[in-house]
């Protein structure tokens, strides 16, 4: 039993007035009351939040945990610990593994490994097609029964419009969404950067924003057609956000997420850094204008979630000249701070509740999990404690993740998680965060 005192409680929708105390018992939130109103049972371990935010455990909809098959990059243990240390209590593991997570036995493997790691909850995403080959539907019903949280062929778009339409209908019967990686591949062959000034000045092949927009519009048309729920992941272009905004106005069942890197880094950094491969990612970093459009999307509700697209690689695959380096940014352990720091530096362009929802209730609704992303009496005790005033430097060498390269290396960021709790168990505490708590 735990007794969390003096926290500012964000319940998934609103930040409560004043400070709150919470009693956590048997993995659930047993009681919520204004601070100092009640005396808990003797046995409770007291954790004093001293005014820090208590939020529902953060959910990352999109991370590459590389397990099974690419454990030199990451595995479920390192990945789920990294998630916990990054402030997440739930992380959705992408299925582009080797073999791909395309059947119930592999879904079970991921769940069991995640369970035994004892860190953040790992929810497997199943692939839409067998072997991620884009030809036949994978056994989604079997995977759903085993515990798959969503379906995606991420890394690639679902190969054809017909297949995506079928998958949407099939998943809709199961009450689940399809997560689409929107990219028209014929426009992005060999692409390394955005098709903007950096591409012009370096000659690197550019991925035009139209490649994303075409796939976004395809998805919207099919979601409209079927009435099924399509989730568009890692949107990077102004035009994509505009298309989603319109679709939502038309009542189409569309949700989307954006990444911390597309919210804070733009393509100019590639040239400025002398083609440092830390900035190589797909979709590529776009223009400053696109970056601003993503923030507008956060502000007006077009965006439902912030997801990391954490893409860890071994140093030998990433510490290479730009063109041969692997594409992907590792961020699980700094993503929350990257976003809160940017939100603070921008002068809090919208309320903190909106920002917190993008890590909690927003992603929970994409996963259609009503038991996650909120705190009320009786709910699962997944909790992220956040210290908006805490400043800390990003040091990848101290990460739980196996990744050692990140664009934010050495940056002093403000606004860090200081503790994560899953089902009432403390799974991570920031040792220098000033919070007196012990890991369970």
């Amino acid at each position, binding site marked *: 039993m735990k007794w969390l005192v003096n926290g500012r409680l964000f319940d998934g929708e609103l930040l409560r007035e004043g400070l709150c105390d919470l009693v956590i018992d048997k993995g659930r939130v047993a009681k919520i009351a204004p601070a100092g109103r009640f005396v808990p049972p003797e046995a409770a371990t007291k954790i004093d939040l001293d005014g820090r935010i208590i939020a529902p455990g953060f959910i990352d909809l999109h991370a590459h945990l590389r397990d099974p098959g690419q454990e030199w990059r990451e595995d479920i243990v390192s990945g789920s610990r990294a998630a916990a240390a990054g402030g997440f209590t739930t992380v959705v593991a992408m299925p582009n593994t080797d073999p791909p997570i395309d059947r119930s036995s592999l879904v079970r493997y991921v769940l069991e490994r995640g369970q035994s790691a004892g860190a953040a909850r790992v929810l497997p995403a199943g692939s839409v097609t067998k072997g991620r080959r884009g030809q036949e539907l994978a056994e989604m019903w079997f995977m759903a029964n085993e515990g798959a949280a969503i379906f995606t062929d991420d890394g690639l778009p679902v190969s054809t419009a017909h297949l995506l339409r079928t998958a949407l209908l099939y998943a809709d019967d199961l009450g689940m969404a399809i997560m689409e990686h929107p990219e028209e591949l014929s426009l992005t062959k060999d692409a390394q950067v955005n098709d903007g000034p950096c591409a012009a000045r370096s*000659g690197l092949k550019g991925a035009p924003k139209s490649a994303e927009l075409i796939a976004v519009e395809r998805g919207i048309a099919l979601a409209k057609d079927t009435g099924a729920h399509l989730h568009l992941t890692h949107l990077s272009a102004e035009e994509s956000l505009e298309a989603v905004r319109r679709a939502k106005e038309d009542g189409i069942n569309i949700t989307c997420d954006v990444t911390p890197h597309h919210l804070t880094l733009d393509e100019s950094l590639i040239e400025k850094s002398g083609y440092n491969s830390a900035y190589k990612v797909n979709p590529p970093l776009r223009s400053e204008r696109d970056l601003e459009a993503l923030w507008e999307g956060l502000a007006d509700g077009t965006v439902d979630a912030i997801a990391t697209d954490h893409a860890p690689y071994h140093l030998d695959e990433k510490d290479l000249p730009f*063109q041969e380096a692997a594409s992907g940014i590792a961020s699980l352990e700094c993503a929350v701070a990257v976003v809160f720091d940017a939100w603070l530096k921008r002068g809090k362009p919208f309320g903190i509740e909106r920002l917190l929802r993008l890590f909690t209730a927003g992603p929970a609704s994409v996963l259609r999990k009503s038991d996650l992303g909120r705190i009320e009496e009786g709910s699962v005790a997944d909790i992220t404690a956040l210290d908006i005033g805490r400043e800390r430097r990003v040091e990848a060498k101290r990460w739980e993740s196996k990744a050692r390269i990140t664009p934010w290396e050495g940056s002093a960021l403000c606004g860090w998680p200081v503790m994560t709790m899953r089902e009432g168990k403390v799974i991570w505490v920031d040792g220098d965060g000033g919070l007196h708590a012990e890991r369970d």
Partner: protein
Amino acid sequence: MSWRRKHLIDVDDWEREDFELLLEQTSNMDSILDRSIKKAPALRGKIVVNIFYEPSTRTRTSFEIAGKLLSADVINWTASGSSAAKGESLRDTIWTLEAMGADAVVIRHGEVGVPYYLAEKLKKASVINGGDGTHAHPTQALLDLYTAWRELGSLDGKKVAIVGDILHSRVARSDIYAFKAVGAEVYLSGPSTLMPTDINSLNAMYEPNIAEAIEGADIVYMLRIQRERQDAGLFPSLDEYHRRYGLTDKLLGKAKKGALVMHPGPINRGVEIASSVADGPQSFVLKQVRAGVAVRMALLYLMLGGVKE
């Protein structure tokens, strides 16, 4: 005289004074090439390694001659006959070269940004970019600049038309920067499919009609057309390309009388340039080659011998 740059990766951070200093220095080196015994002791005891991951005879030979004329020891490390063929990483290769005592590494590589990567990884040796993918070819730009400057004097207000496959050309990217830095106006021409999408960020005027692009030009700079661009569907045929964009005597008549015709070589006769123009009195192609040796001598001298710290 001082030279503060340790590496030569690109000229896009050079000031006008840097170009002018290099042109003066090149002029001195050029006079060595006229001597009967063309050897100076300036870089005795220095080791220059040419490491070429892409086939290039002229650039490599030019660096080799330049180094040797200044008495440096020049070693050619060709990627196919060396560790690269054994799968050694670039990083390990250049650390090996540095451990062997290389003072400068001239690198030619098919990928953008490789020289930046080397400069970051090397502790002591200077890096000279001999061409990185589609990105930059700074010594080509400098030799082009020197060729033009020697013939025309000040390049302020001069019109330079660069014609052809700008999209894939490291020569064009470096030349645009270099010519603009010394006051010239640069026009680009070629089909839109061979231009970068965001062409405005190249800081030059784009004119798809070649006749208008070279109208009154002081310098007409033709780029080599690679057959594989046709295979990639960027233009329909070499024949059609030649008819639209090939430099013929008639077309050259649009440029200023006596305009310089330049080309980075090797030329494709009958594609981007007609033989009669390539062999004609306005062709500066061989003068560019000679300038290449002088420019590389000047650079090696400035980088390895010009400054005592």
